[in-house]
């Protein structure tokens, strides 16, 4: 289908982009990878009067270690994140997620920032960033502020980003030693959204007890879900079969899936239970190395 007509703007600096968004307000949508926006526009589920293309703005496309964190520019393409040696070595959970986002073609354009800013519970990075305890940087007319990802998702396709703000960076704390993570996604076919997916990032303390657990759930609720109760019950515990089983059941209870062509509520809840257990085991394996 053909999108509705719009005016196209291509600012070359972040300041210009912010000025444009300030002027255009709700009539404007930001274009990064376009791999979520353009399909919506083709279906006319989104018909913004103005499109602000961020792709010519420099400085938003790097992946680097800085001040104890992995700093990912919002315009980093998923394929670039996937190929990054730094990501593969230090953040296997991120590497897991990149490989299952859409397909390789989409990943050449889709951006990490867009995957978060879109606010879609079906996107994969939200659950991973929840598990990792990441923060995003939002820049607006008043300057920059940090938003913990745990506070970013406020409703279906809604985020805490204010009108006129642009997500510019994602900061992921470098995991301490004896940390491991995994992202497991069940999809009907490559390119599909998750029937359900679970991201887990853990850090083990001295005696093999769990010092910290982050658990994020994809596409089993109106927003990406942080399984806080499951996380809390793992803290200070050894990750034996009983603990894993309990955490998995709790995480399933924290999900709020809807029935659709991918499955029933009961099926999806049970998937959360199974995937959480598997992801915990995989994270544990990786933490032990």
């Amino acid at each position: 289908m053909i999108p509705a007509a719009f005016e196209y703007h291509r600012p070359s600096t972040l300041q210009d982009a912010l000025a444009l968004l300030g002027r255009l307000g709700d009539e404007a949508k930001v274009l990064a990878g376009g791999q979520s926006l353009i399909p919506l526009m083709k279906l006319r589920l989104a018909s913004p009067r103005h499109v602000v293309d961020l792709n010519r703005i420099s400085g938003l496309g790097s992946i680097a270690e800085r001040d104890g964190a992995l700093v990912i520019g919002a315009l980093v393409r998923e394929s670039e994140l996937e190929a990054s040696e730094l990501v593969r070595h230090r953040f296997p959970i991120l590497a897991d997620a990149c490989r299952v986002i859409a397909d390789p073609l989409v990943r050449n354009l889709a951006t990490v920032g867009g995957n978060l800013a879109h606010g879609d519970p079906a996107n994969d990075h939200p659950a991973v960033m929840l598990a990792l305890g990441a923060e995003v940087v939002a820049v607006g007319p008043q300057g920059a502020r940090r938003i913990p990802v745990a506070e970013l998702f406020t409703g279906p396709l809604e985020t805490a980003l204010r009108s006129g703000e642009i997500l510019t960076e994602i900061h992921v704390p470098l995991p301490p030693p004896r940390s491991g993570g995994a992202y497991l996604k069940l999809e009907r076919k490559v390119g599909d959204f998750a029937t359900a997916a679970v991201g887990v990032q853990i850090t083990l303390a001295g005696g093999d007890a769990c010092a910290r657990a982050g658990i994020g759930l994809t596409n089993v609720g109106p927003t990406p879900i942080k399984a806080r109760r499951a996380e809390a019950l793992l803290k200070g515990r050894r990750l034996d079969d009983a603990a894993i089983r309990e955490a998995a059941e709790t995480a399933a209870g924290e999900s709020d899936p809807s029935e659709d062509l991918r499955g029933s509520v009961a099926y999806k809840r049970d998937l959360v239970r199974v995937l959480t257990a598997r992801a915990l085991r995989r994270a544990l394996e990786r933490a032990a190395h």
Partner: protein
Amino acid sequence: MRVAVTINGERREADVEPRLLLVHLIREVFRLTGTHIGCDTSHCGACTVLLDGRPVKSCTVFAVQADGRTVLTVEGLEQNGQLHPVQESFVQEHGLQCGYCTPGMLMTSYAYLQDHPRPSEDEIRHAISGNLCRCTGYVNIVKAIQHAAAKLAAPAS
């Protein structure tokens, strides 16, 4: 809006609405109909072209985004009347039936083999997972890409 695109090595310009999709610029304005439209939902990959060297779904890019950039379509694979080894391999290994997905398969595999000259079968299957085929069951497509990899790796005879 005026856009200038270097397509298959040639600089071409056009006046377009911002909402014109890159695939429509290629097919209807530039009359290069080798790039196909197979779905409408950004799934099938029949519209795959190279944008600044990277394979993308041209139905999910606005033409205006390609302004000042380079596009390679399936028509650009042939050089001086010679088919590219990837194309020859698809012929040799019967890597197509109806041919609808084929331009997309060719563009994706052309780009992929440039960075991954010795892929395993598994890696090939993952690389083309954004290109859907309804005819072949992918078997001969994979063989064609393996054949092309070998051809490209072999010293010219």
